[in-house]
């Protein structure tokens, strides 16, 4: 049995005891995040499967529902999220280069974009729920044929964008957490795994939206309130 760590070692203070090298630790942490994201794909996947099935069954109701979406808010939100992914990626890069101030700034901008997304989502939900009575349940109202089928469309809309928003809130929390520690000087070229992993999570949540947006907002080119 051979020694893996030399008797006297200048090791990274962030190296945890059960890892032999920083490289092993970093690769392990990143792999862990990827495996977690795969579980998230399966989690959302169930809802996507249900969406596909019902869209096939009730296509005209899906058209109707899609026409009631706020096309402009949805599009703005997509742009907002894409920009936030850009700033997040730049933040990871800044950490790798050891630029503490840029890192913190970029992370804060990411948070602001995230909050903007959530705010716009809130405006949309207010419109759907309070103004248009489109929350499924006893208070659901829809003028036109296929009311119950459109109600199912809205069930999927709220369930899928709702879980997405929940993931966004967690994401904003994570990025805030990371921003704080970045400001404290915790990360740098020697150790930036948490930032990288948070970035991965953020990009994933963004990608889920990239799928949700066309599936809900772009089915029909007609939009009316």
């Amino acid at each position, binding site marked *: 049995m051979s020694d893996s760590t030399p008797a006297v070692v200048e090791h990274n203070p962030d190296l945890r005891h059960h890892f032999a090298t920083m490289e092993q630790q970093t690769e392990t942490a990143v792999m862990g995040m990827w495996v977690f994201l795969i579980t998230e794909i399966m989690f959302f996947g169930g809802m996507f499967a249900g969406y596909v099935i019902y869209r096939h069954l*009730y*296509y*005209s109701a899906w058209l109707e529902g899609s026409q009631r979406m706020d096309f402009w808010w949805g599009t703005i939100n997509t742009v907002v999220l894409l920009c936030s992914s850009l700033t997040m990626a730049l933040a990871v890069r800044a950490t790798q280069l050891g630029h503490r101030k840029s890192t913190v700034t970029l992370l804060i901008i990411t948070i602001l974009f995230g909050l903007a997304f959530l705010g716009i989502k809130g405006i949309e939900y207010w419109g759907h729920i309070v103004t248009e009575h489109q929350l499924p349940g006893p208070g659901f109202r829809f003028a036109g044929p*296929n009311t*119950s*089928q459109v109600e199912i469309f809205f069930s999927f809309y709220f369930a899928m964008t709702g879980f997405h928003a929940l993931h966004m809130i967690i994401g904003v929390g994570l990025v805030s957490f990371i921003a704080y520690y970045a400001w404290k000087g915790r990360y740098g070229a020697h150790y930036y795994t948490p930032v990288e992993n948070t970035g991965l999570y953020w990009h994933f949540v963004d990608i889920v939206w990239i799928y949700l947006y066309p599936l809900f907002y772009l089915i029909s080119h007609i939009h009316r309130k």
Partner: protein
Amino acid sequence: MLSNTFPLWPTRASTISGQVDALFIFLLMLCGLMCMAIFVAIVVFAIRYRKRPGHQATQIEGSNAVEFTWTFIPAGIFLFIFVWGAYIYFLERTPPRDSMDVYTVAKQWMWKFQHTEGQREINELHIPIGRDVRMIMTSQDVIHSFYVPAFRIKQDVLPGRYTIAWFRASKAGTYHLFCAEYCGTNHSGMIGDVVVMEPAQFQSWLNGGGPMGSLTQTGEGLFQSLGCSTCHRLDTQGRGPNLIGVFGKPVLLEDGRTITADENYVRESILSPAAKVVSGFKPIMPTFQGIVSEEQLNALVAYIKSLTARPSGAAQNPTFQSPAASKADTTRQR
């Protein structure tokens, strides 16, 4: 088997029971053989190769030949079982033409049967021996399951649609009917009897039947009283499609799809008319959800089925013409 003795084999009372039992016995023998083989091997090896002074284990890494043998031989046997089981299932799921229809409504916690001749039964089902019987079933609430062990058939009964089970009784007697899908408090009380009678006895039972007339007559009455005939005119083309001869045939829809007008289509058209609009017509039919009960739906379906030649609504022999049944002609149970 309604005796208090200690049975070890369920009664056979339908024409498919024997086939199911044959496969079961084959599997029993196969299973018995395999298990015996493994048990004997374990016991023999455990004794013969037990640890004792002077005895050494022989390290064997493996053998590809042996592995492939005991991969492909079981796989072949499994395939054989699959085909046999699939064949029986195919028979079970393709009701023959000229089956006698019985409409079933399951609800928590009872079985309601409507014969086309008009008899209604609750938790008891009278059928003649030697006749193909087709159960057209739906649930008023949750999922139930229609299970007659003596017939070896079972079919879940769903809310919102019809499911079909069929059988041909081969032995007179009274047999258990059990609900086999957990459905709440009194699931184990949702049981009944299937009474199989000789044809003559069944006929006299039918004749002593209810005063309300046949199912198709009830359906005809509803068709008029609910106003269906206003748009679905039987004498000429109205605002709705003419329904004569429609049942069992392909229908072209507005969106370009072609579907077959079976029981589920008729039912859906009454409850969600905008779901499948016939090509060339507008989606103006109102929904009857909440207005008609399951039993009334059954009567309407039976009536529309009966609209074959003359539009007078007189009860014709319902002819089930679904494509599946036509294919099943050649493989029909006798």
